[in-house]
């Protein structure tokens, strides 16, 4: 081994250090330490002449280690590492001693401070003796991007990236993109039609040369890390020849088998072969294999669609033998925009959802007012009458510790929107039961004011129950909504023909699966966790994976779109740089000492270590792009095979030993 030659530089920092530490004495003391060949003190080490001292000494004295005792390393460690590098020394052969924030500024006795500074310098010298040069590694970034989820968030993110002429794979598990937004009728507070603003974007996605749309598909497996993810996508069988189908819909018309439509929230039926809605992208039919009698009877019954398909897109072969395809993709970053589920209000027994016909959820009501919806845009009761009185209940499943504690953010506004639509479509009285009105966005408060002008009855109180047990004649045959009007301090019963529940938005039922697929973390409320709630809201703790829209928590369309654009910017900036710098101070396995016990694999939050079989011996291997150097694996390693570069035991133990030495 080359002889270790250490240079020590003690900074005065003007009087910041020199005022309460005898820097000359510290420097003199440092010169007496083993392997120290030069020791100096200087007024401002961080200045250019200060840094030049180090660079010159590297040449003159052949220094191969350097220590600067000055301010906090959080301030200037990088400065001096760079100085070393410019002087021809590996930046990791440098160590910093903090004699300002941790010494001169916090104690007043000059003698004691000087002794403490000596201790800190001695420890740094001892530590740096054991430093090793580390390589700064870079890895290339694959310019393709995967977007998961084809709702408004995924659509927006995909378009932004594709418009930058980078390839996007957009994976959507339903037969068509559009998400929940395409189910909505109008959007608050502007009341523009959701379909009208969304379908052009959907069409753009459909024919964009840089977007490969994988609808009716699901991500099965993700491996690798930032810059080089490998993804397996299952493209589910539609049981038709996608290249031939023209989406004419004749098969759907002829198909005799029906179930309640998911898209219409059960308010209408769909066929066994179907296009979920008129503007679906891609415009292809999909066969529901569980419902299709031809498939269920193994080709013995029905087959109407085959007969009527002029394009020959449906054949016995496609119906019976078509299987799912696995598509393998390579991408550099991933945007997760998997959206939300609507809270199921049937778990709140007192609201009677599922028990009374005319108790509806928000999404059901959206379909009802939609001109293309099951009632042709009319607000109707189950028996076909028009309601004379409608009650809208806020905070159903949200702001309630029995269900979800969080505020669902959009319900106040969509509740107001319903009130407006009811006023527009019917002559009904509208009662809006709220706890607090939260109308925070652009034009939202104005919308609230407008609704007040329209004569909506606002009642402040949480509804206790919806019942059909009438007390008076007027109540008979209607639903009665019971609550305290907390402003009057009086219990009230409101007879209503229709009750609309502003159901909360909740995390997708399979959020745990998605989270483990993309190594995301979930908050207590089930939504995905951002890296920093304020300063890094669309990044996640997993580098290269970003989140947008309601999978991160309830939010409205403007916020969702803004977030989607933010994720696109993140992905594009990664592509634009083209490479990533890997952390150097990361874990490293000494394979001969490794038992392959997997403790490291178990403890690692970032999935960096993995036990593999090498020549029949089980050993752990570190994925260097995943490792963040937190060092938890080294603590649990039973043999000491796991080492964190730059934080090796001999480095820290020598520092500790030097600090505890009594002078």
């Amino acid at each position, binding site marked *: 081994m080359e002889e270790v030659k250490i240079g020590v530089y003690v900074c005065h920092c003007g009087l910041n250090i020199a005022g309460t530490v005898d820097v000359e004495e510290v420097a003199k003391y440092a010169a007496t330490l083993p392997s120290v060949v030069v020791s100096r003190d200087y007024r401002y080490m961080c200045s250019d002449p200060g840094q030049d001292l180090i660079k010159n000494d590297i040449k003159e004295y052949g220094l191969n280690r350097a220590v600067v005792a000055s301010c906090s390393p959080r301030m200037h460690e990088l400065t001096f590492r760079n100085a070393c590098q410019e002087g021809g020394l590996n930046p990791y052969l440098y160590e910093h001693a903090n004699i300002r924030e941790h010494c001169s500024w916090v104690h007043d006795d000059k003698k004691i401070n000087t002794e403490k500074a000596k201790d800190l310098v001695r420890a740094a010298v001892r530590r740096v003796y054991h430093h090793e040069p580390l390589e700064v590694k870079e890895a290339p970034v694959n310019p393709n991007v995967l977007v998961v989820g084809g709702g408004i968030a995924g659509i927006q993110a995909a378009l932004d990236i594709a418009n930058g002429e980078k390839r996007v794979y957009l994976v959507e598990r339903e037969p068509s993109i559009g998400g929940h937004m395409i189910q909505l009728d109008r959007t608050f507070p502007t009341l523009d039609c959701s379909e009208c603003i969304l379908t052009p974007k959907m069409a753009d996605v459909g024919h964009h040369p840089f977007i490969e749309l994988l609808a009716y598909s699901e991500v099965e497996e993700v491996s690798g890390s930032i810059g080089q993810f490998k993804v397996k996508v299952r493209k589910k069988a539609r049981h038709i020849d996608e290249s031939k189908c023209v989406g004419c819909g004749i098969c759907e018309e002829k198909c005799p088998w029906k179930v309640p439509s998911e898209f219409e929230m059960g308010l209408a039926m769909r066929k066994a072969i179907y296009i979920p809605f008129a503007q679906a992208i891609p415009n292809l039919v999909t066969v529901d294999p569980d419902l299709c009698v031809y498939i269920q009877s193994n080709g013995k019954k029905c087959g109407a669609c085959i007969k009527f398909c002029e394009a020959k897109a449906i054949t016995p072969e496609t119906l019976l033998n078509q299987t799912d395809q696995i598509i393998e993709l390579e991408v550099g970053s991933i945007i997760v925009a998997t959206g939300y589920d609507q809270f199921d209000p049937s778990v709140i*027994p*007192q609201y009677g959802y599922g028990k009374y016909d005319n108790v509806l959820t928000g999404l059901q009501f959206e379909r009802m007012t939609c001109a293309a919806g099951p009632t042709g845009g009319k607000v109707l009761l189950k028996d076909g009458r028009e309601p004379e009185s409608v009650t809208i209940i806020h905070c159903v499943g949200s*702001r309630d*510790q029995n269900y979800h504690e969080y505020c669902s953010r959009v319900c106040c506004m969509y509740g107001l929107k319903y009130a407006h639509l009811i006023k527009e479509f019917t002559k009904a009285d509208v009662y809006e039961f709220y*706890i607090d009105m939260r109308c925070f966005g652009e034009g939202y408060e104005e919308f609230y004011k407008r609704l007040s002008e329209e004569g909506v009855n606002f009642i402040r109180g*949480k509804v*206790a129950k919806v019942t059909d047990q009438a007390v008076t004649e007027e109540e008979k045959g209607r639903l009665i909504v019971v609550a305290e009007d*907390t402003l009057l301090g009086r*219990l009230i019963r409101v007879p209503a023909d229709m009750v609309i529940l502003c159901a909360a938005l909740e995390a997708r039922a399979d959020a745990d699966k998605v989270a483990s697929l993309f190594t995301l973390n979930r908050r207590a409320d089930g939504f995905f966790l951002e890296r920093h709630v304020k300063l890094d809201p669309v990044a996640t703790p997993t580098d290269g994976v970003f989140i947008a829209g309601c999978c991160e928590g309830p939010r409205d369309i403007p916020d969702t779109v803004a977030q989607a654009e933010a994720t696109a910017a993140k992905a594009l900036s990664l592509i634009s740089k083209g490479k990533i710098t890997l952390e150097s101070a990361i874990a490293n396995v000494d394979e001969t000492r490794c038992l392959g016990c997997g403790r490291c694999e178990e403890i690692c939050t970032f999935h960096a270590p993995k036990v593999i079989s090498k020549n029949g011996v089980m050993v752990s291997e570190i994925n260097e792009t995943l490792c963040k150097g937190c060092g938890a694996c080294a603590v649990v390693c039973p043999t000491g095979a796991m080492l964190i570069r730059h934080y090796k035991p001999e480095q820290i133990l020598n520092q500790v030993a030097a600090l505890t030495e009594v002078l």
Partner: protein
Amino acid sequence: MPILESAVYVEMEVLSPYKEATEVMIEAGGEPLRLCYQCGICTATCPWNLVRGFIVRRIIHEAQLGATDFGSEEVWLCATCRACVQRCPRGVEIIDVMRAARRAVVSLGIGIVPDALRISAKNIAGAGNPLGEAPEKRGDWAKDLGVKKFSPGTEILYFPCCVPAYDPDVKKVSQATATILSKLGVDFGILGSEERCCGEAIRKAGYEDTFHSLAQSNINAFSSNDVKTVVVSSPHCYHTFKNEYPELGGEFQVIHITQYLAQLIDQGRLKFSKEINKRVIYSDPCYLGRHNGIYDEPRKVLQSIPGVELIEFPDSREDSLCCGGGGGRIWMETVKGERFSDIRVEQALEKGADIIAVACPYCFLNYRDSVLTMDKAEVIEVKDVSELVAEAM
């Protein structure tokens, strides 16, 4: 809090001058009280609003602001049925707030304790039972049944508590229970004169000290006799033994008689030989159901009695209507027209029930009184589940 102080100043006459008492109350209600966001679901859930106005939400808000009116009758209304707590979106333990208000009145003398309650409380403190009966006669109900005194080594302690021990009518419940247990050869005993009121209701009525001394006395009696398992007839005993005694150092297994009977049926030990061909409607006691989540076992017992047709109230299980007897209300006067039990009896009649099956002595007393005052004794009976079981054996 300058804003609040100025509010106090401006509206001095309506705000309570008993600041200390308010603090006591907030303390006993704990932090959840402060969590209330005034949605009013408690008010709209509270059964009192079926018969009169009782704005629970306002009481909570008054407590939050230190403006409770301790002189009001409202302090004494809550039957602690837990319907509101069950629905509260913020987890406010409203019953604790009510209890704390009463405690403030009782201990600080800043309001008026209803006469009937004061007498019962005095009796409990003195004689260990609200009826003022002689403590040494507490075991008399079992005189002719050959029930042994509990001694260390006995498997099960049967704890009837006050009403089933003394009330000439409700005695039937404890006697039926003892009969069943004896017939099945269960190794059980009673504490007799060593037993005291469990103290659950008197605690809810604000008599915290009385509760502590009763509980301590029972815990001492239990531990000196090496009691491990207690079977109770009253859900109120069940609740306090299970949820309140452990804090005072009383840890033992508590089983409600309906649970125990269901267990015996499961084990094949309890078999029936007679049919009861009646329509039986079961009323969930608040302290068995909402307070402790026991809904299925009593129904199971009733369903296994041959001939019984079990029917349900329009509001049952979690939504079951209270009889009005919890929280010390059993010792207070409820004017006619405001009795929940009357509504309950009407509901039962509407459903065509022959028997209202109860599993709580307070329910028993209230329904019995309602049936009598409504003059319906000919049409409908009130019976405890254990009575029905004893009959069918």
